């Protein structure tokens, strides 16, 4: 289960509202490479994962992504406080405002609501880890693009932290892939699927002991 800890993983303290930037950054909550997709991806993939180290990394990275959802929401919340109607109209935030006011609702920067279509859980750990490695890089690129679009040091500080986490997660998923391959038939990694062909996976494990 999960327990809530009443703090952010990294502080978010934004002085100046900026609804146009909020609309852009919201994509890391509800967009195709955002934190909601990341959390859902890892936390669903882990159940059929056969190797403890890999199950651990999926669980712990997935849990950290829940904390990143909270950080992105905090950024968007702080960027949309105390807005006057003129600011809302002129910034282009009006198209979000009309449906959600300044409540947090996970959408992409283009306004498309979050969908589970953004992620996969394939039941094959080699396949899933390749998806995860790509997902971390896609999120890193999105954060790079946000850093290009923002000139507010308060925003950039939190975004830089999140960007760095993508790189660390990518590194750990790479190690998870190596651990997975070390557990498989070194002549043919695809000889069987260790999440499904459990008899073969056990037999190989036994023969190595």
């Amino acid at each position, binding site marked *: 289960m999960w327990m809530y800890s*009443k*703090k952010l993983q990294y502080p978010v303290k*934004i002085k100046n509202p900026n609804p146009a930037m909020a609309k852009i950054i919201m994509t890391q909550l509800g967009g195709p490479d955002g934190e909601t997709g990341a959390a859902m991806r890892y936390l669903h993939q882990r159940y059929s994962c056969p190797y403890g180290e890999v199950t651990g990394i999926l669980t*712990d*990275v997935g849990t950290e992504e829940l904390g990143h959802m*909270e950080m992105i*929401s905090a950024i968007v919340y*702080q960027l949309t406080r105390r807005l006057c109607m003129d600011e809302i109209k002129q910034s282009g935030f009006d198209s979000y405002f009309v449906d959600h006011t300044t409540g947090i609702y996970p959408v992409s920067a283009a306004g498309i609501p979050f969908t589970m279509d953004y992620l996969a859980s394939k039941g094959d750990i080699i396949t899933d880890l390749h998806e995860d490695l790509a997902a971390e890089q896609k999120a890193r690129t999105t954060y790079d693009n946000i850093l290009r679009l923002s000139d507010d040091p308060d925003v950039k500080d939190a975004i830089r932290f999140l960007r760095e986490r993508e790189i*660390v997660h990518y590194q750990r998923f790479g*190690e998870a892939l190596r651990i997975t391959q070390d557990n498989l038939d070194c002549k043919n990694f695809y000889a069987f699927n260790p999440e499904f062909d459990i008899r073969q996976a056990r037999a190989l494990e036994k023969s190595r002991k």
Partner: protein
Amino acid sequence: MNEREVLLKRVQICDFALADTALFLDTHPENQMALDFYKKYLEMRKAAADAYTSRFGPLVHSDYDGGPRWNWVDNPWPWQNEEA
């Protein structure tokens, strides 16, 4: 930063070190240096969390101090920037 934020930042620093080391340990479960590092920050985390919760209330439900009020519900919540 006010005093609450200073004490909270100490917990955040410790928890970040612990979370990052936990990820490393997931893929290197026998790394003694990482285990020692984790142990060291666990102790620092305990001291930092005690210093924070004794003055500014719970970080998790189980920090409840036995007092007459469930101060878990008190502001600020983590996303509320008090200064702005």
